[in-house]
């Protein structure tokens, strides 16, 4: 029996307005979703062209969850998005050309060729770069929340993890610590049902991962991760609750990873019916349909947004390809920070 609250879908435009979004916001979210998917589709092409070294990962199927949560964050909030959360980077304002540059190991990527894939973040936009060891970023998110609490700032930290990473001890330590201190942190589980080839019943034995929240002393909620507006509503609620001193929330966004773990993986182990069922709930199409029915999105508007995104991404790819590879003479630069990078003492 489920312990976590199971979130209802969002219905009408008036309900959305109550959540604080106007029509322009909704069209912006739609555009960000198109950019998110577009970046990853074009990244895939670059990979096939041999222009991306290493491997390549996408978050296909998770675009709504990532964009919705990114949109619900406040300007001074921070987060640790992962490799299925490209939408968070897009919403926070990371320019697509810099993402392509990072994919290709170029000097203008946020990591200056030091790391690849989505292992990047622009700290000025409140993002902290992920590592491959999941969920090692959860304790870091909790630490950011601890800083906000110590300084009495009305800011919130968001920590992402997957259902696979939920099996590791970092998850427990983070949630337990955040629970004991009621820290302003929101835990977001991208539950895409497959940790590489491992299905959920081999990762956890509860009905929902969000059921665990109660054991840590805070609320858990499961939401359909393909429902943009339901995720937004739950994220906004959790973030503002944390901001007001109400402590953490665990939001589990249920989706299906619509591609393999990475580009080399054909996901043969995922039943075909599962893909077919979830393809009917494609988050992008689902949100577009909702906008047509509830916010009178017109064909012209749709075409205009799509054309703008196409232009943005074409330019971004061109600019990224113009970025040079890092100079090998810079190999050892930046292992250590210099004292002048940080501020003087606060008395």
């Amino acid at each position, binding site marked *: 029996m489920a312990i976590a609250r199971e979130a209802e879908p969002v219905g009408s435009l008036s309900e959305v307005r109550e959540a604080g979004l106007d029509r322009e916001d909704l069209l912006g979210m739609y555009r960000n979703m198109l950019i998110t998917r577009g970046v990853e589709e074009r990244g895939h092409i670059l990979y096939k062209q041999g222009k991306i070294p290493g491997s390549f990962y996408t978050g296909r199927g998770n675009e709504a969850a990532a964009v919705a949560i990114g949109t619900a964050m406040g300007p001074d909030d*921070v987060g640790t998005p992962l490799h299925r959360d490209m939408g968070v980077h897009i919403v926070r304002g990371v320019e697509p050309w810099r993402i392509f540059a990072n994919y290709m190991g170029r000097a203008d990527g*946020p*990591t*200056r060729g*030091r*790391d690849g894939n989505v*292992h*990047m*973040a622009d*700290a000025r936009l409140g993002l*902290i*770069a992920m*590592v491959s*060891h999941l969920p*090692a*970023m*959860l*304790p*870091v*998110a*909790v*630490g*950011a*929340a*601890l*800083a*906000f*609490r*110590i300084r009495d700032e009305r800011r919130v*930290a968001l920590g992402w993890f997957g259902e696979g990473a939920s099996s590791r*001890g*970092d998850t427990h*330590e*983070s949630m*337990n*610590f955040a629970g*004991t201190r009621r820290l302003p942190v929101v835990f977001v589980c991208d539950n895409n049902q497959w940790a590489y080839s491992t299905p959920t019943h081999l990762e956890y034995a509860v009905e929902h991962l969000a059921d665990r929240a109660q054991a840590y002393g805070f609320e858990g909620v499961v939401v359909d991760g393909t429902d943009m507006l339901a995720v937004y509503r739950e994220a906004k609620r959790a973030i503002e609750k944390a901001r007001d001193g109400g402590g953490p929330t665990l939001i589990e966004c249920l989706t299906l990873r619509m591609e393999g773990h990475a580009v080399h993986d054909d996901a043969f182990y995922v039943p075909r019916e599962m893909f077919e069922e979830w393809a009917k709930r494609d988050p992008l199409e689902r949100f577009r349909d909702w906008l047509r029915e509830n916010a009178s999105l017109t064909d012209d508007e749709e075409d205009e947004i799509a054309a703008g995104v196409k232009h943005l991404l074409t330019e971004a790819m061109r600019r990224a390809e113009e970025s040079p590879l890092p100079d090998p003479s810079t190999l050892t630069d*930046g*292992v*250590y*920070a*210099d*004292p002048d*990078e*940080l*501020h003087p*003492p*606060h*008395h």
Partner: protein
Amino acid sequence: MAELTYLQAISDGLRGEMRRDHRVFVIGEDVGVYGGAFKVTLGFQEEFGPWRVIDAPLAETAIVGGCTGAALMGMRPVAEMQFSDFVSCAWDQLVTVAAKQHYRAGTAVPIVVRLPSGGGFSGGPFHSQNPESSFAHVPGLKCVCPATPADAKGLLISAIEDPNPVLYFEHKHLYRRIKGDVPEERYTVPIGKARIHREGDDVSLITWGAMVYTASEAADQLEQDGVAVEIVDLRSVLPWDKSAVLESVRKTSKVLVLHEDTHTGGFGAEIAATIGEEAFEDLDAPVKRLSAPDTPVPFSPSLEKAFIPQVEDVARSLRELAEY
């Protein structure tokens, strides 16, 4: 100038930085109400309150990862591992996250992790280790190992000031046994700079931490035989003061590298290899290493005494070198 124990010097340095800089906070197991397992933070919570002297759950990953997150938000966290042995539980946060963050993302992680280290009191395999060599292999970290009260204070202040993750290995055997003059004012001791503990022309002895005192006693014995031993207290192992070591080796032409950590892959190996590469022509004898054997730290006093290099072991090694 006041005479303080090594432990008091650590407390003094930490308290001073907390008074001076509101970004500095302490987090660890039992550091608040109890004042820390060794009482380094005794009275801190009364002075600074429960949100700057934070009693954490028994969760080293959350403690160190939490420090990294807070540091990225502009704080200057100082974590205490109850014993350095437990830092193994936070390995990932130090090595995977904190150490690599600046190189990858360009964001500084100014954290200090205090690590009560070392044996000599039957602490057994899990309360006696000296894990500095493991971390000295990790680019992005810094590792300091003060031996004197003055260095304990000055290096702690440097560690807190430093914009990088610094592991501060404080030797438990020295806590209350070693006293020394410590300036009352604020000062720093540079990370990566060695100190000549004792001057001599005949044999160089490179060491750090509690072994500085073992080395001193052995050098006293050699002095009676007319052999002048120069003791270089390394103070930091990452970065380490290569030029001070090479300078001493070039003066004496004979060198013993001594550490309390186990032998294979211990930091002494790095020092010996560097001397071989860069000062081969200056040597009159093969570089000698003395360390603990490759075993876990044993519990029983007779075994532990055989494990940790003793004054007689050091004196014997020095004599062998002197006579070579």
